[in-house]
């Protein structure tokens, strides 16, 4: 028999409310996010075309941010399922910059290495790597690399599409590189430093 006290100390630490979370997300979002103005009306969750696949509706995610549930919020697949349709943004009665908050949460999840499925972060990273390398995006390279890694079983299904796109020359075989790639790299390098410092 454990005493009540022992039981208390041996229980896993309860999640501590992290009241700085909401402010942090708001601060890191482009523009004026107005996240703290959310009235939990649910118009965002009601508007969302991909809500069915989300762990939490956007509204619920914002409630979790307010409650300081950092781990659970960053683990949520919701930001990764958001398709940036901006339906919620224009309908939100409080003009919360919802889609941009989703971008912030993605970057915070990547930073904290908190996500359930690496498909989306990898896709974004692959895309960004290419842009940083060439200054342009390169659809063929991206799609194949991405599909090989994440949906190898789907590849045969996707083949007709890929072949179609290739035969119609709608995918570049060789990527173009911009002339000012050195300049772009310098800009991005500085940008990362600025971001780290702020």
């Amino acid at each position: 028999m454990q005493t009540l006290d022992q039981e208390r100390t041996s229980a896993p630490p309860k999640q501590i409310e992290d009241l700085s979370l909401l402010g942090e997300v708001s601060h890191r979002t482009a523009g004026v996010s107005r996240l703290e103005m959310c009235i939990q009306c649910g118009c965002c969750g009601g508007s969302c075309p991909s809500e069915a696949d989300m762990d939490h509706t956007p509204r619920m995610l914002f409630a979790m941010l307010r409650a300081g549930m950092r781990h659970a919020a960053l683990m949520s697949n919701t930001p990764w399922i958001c398709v940036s349709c901006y339906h919620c943004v224009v309908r939100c009665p409080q003009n919360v910059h919802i889609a941009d908050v989703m971008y912030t949460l993605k970057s915070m999840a990547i930073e904290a290495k908190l996500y359930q499925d690496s498909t989306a972060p990898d896709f974004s990273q692959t895309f960004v790597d290419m842009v940083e390398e060439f200054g342009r995006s390169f659809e063929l390279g991206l799609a194949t690399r991405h599909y090989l890694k994440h949906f190898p079983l789907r590849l045969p299904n996707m083949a007709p599409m890929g072949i179609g796109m290739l035969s119609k020359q709608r995918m570049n075989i060789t990527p173009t590189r911009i002339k000012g790639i050195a300049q772009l790299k310098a800009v991005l390098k500085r940008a990362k430093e600025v971001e780290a410092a702020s």
Partner: protein
Amino acid sequence: MNKYILYPGCSMESSARAYYDSLKAITDIIGLNLQEIEDWNCCGATEYLGIKLTPAYALISRNLALAAQQADGTRTVVAPCSACYLNLAKADYYMQEQPVLGQHVNEALAAGGLSYKPGSLDIRHLLDVLVYDVGLDTIKSKVVRPLTGLRVAPYLGCMVPRPDYEHRWSDYEYPVELDRLLNALGADVIEFPLKTECCGGHMTQISPDTAFELIRRLVSAADEHQADLMATLCPMCQMNLDAYQSETNKFFHTSYRMPVIFFTQLMGLAFGLEAKDLGFGLELVSARNALAKIGIEHPAEIPTGTARPKKDGSLPMPAPLPRRNMHTEKGKVVK
């Protein structure tokens, strides 16, 4: 001649070649002088924003900085791709709304010897420029082969009419600009209720099942409305609805064959240009049958739009709202 700075974006050179080809083919006819930004770079689509904020906005802003340098008497940047349009427009807007973002971006740009003063350019979508600057009257006057009988579902997707911080469009949910332009071409424009619903965006890459459902909704609604084709203005929408249509069919055991065509291709057709010079044939779901319909003397009489209740004891409907911007009342009236 109206002069503009053009930001084509990556897709215009690959997956959306039909868009670029047809755009180039019609610019002279309607007197549009587009000057491409020298050595522009990718806008980062919807990907970079989810990784790091400042680099993402710096990436976008390099283009703004280059465009401003090259401006030469004009301040309008035209983007035909909706994701590019949104990224450029949003960056410009947020850097004004939140000056510290502008400062950070400029610190980064300085590393490449560049700078950009937020608010010094007008970022506009191609359709906006065509409808409001070139004007529907001009467009109409160039039509030599009206698209009479072609039932077109106008489809804009999400990122052109939303979030529209600068209030450039008649509405976020049911903007009328594309409808009016297609009307000017003589097409039979369907009142398409899903015209600004999402095509799935990058979900075709990340969570295909999510995307397939969104594609199904759109294609089936267009089919339900007996559209011959869907007209779009976004490379991503065109790609998702066209290239992934067969996967979607497989996924849901359906058999839709809905061609998805860029609106500039239809403009070219109406201006009398050859289909082959307008990028037709690049689409995976062929528009052959749809095109074959044009010119038929007696087009099938299928009613367009929602019928108003008749004089059968039914109650009258309210009159449509005069088309100004419904949200701000600041918007312009379509001429």
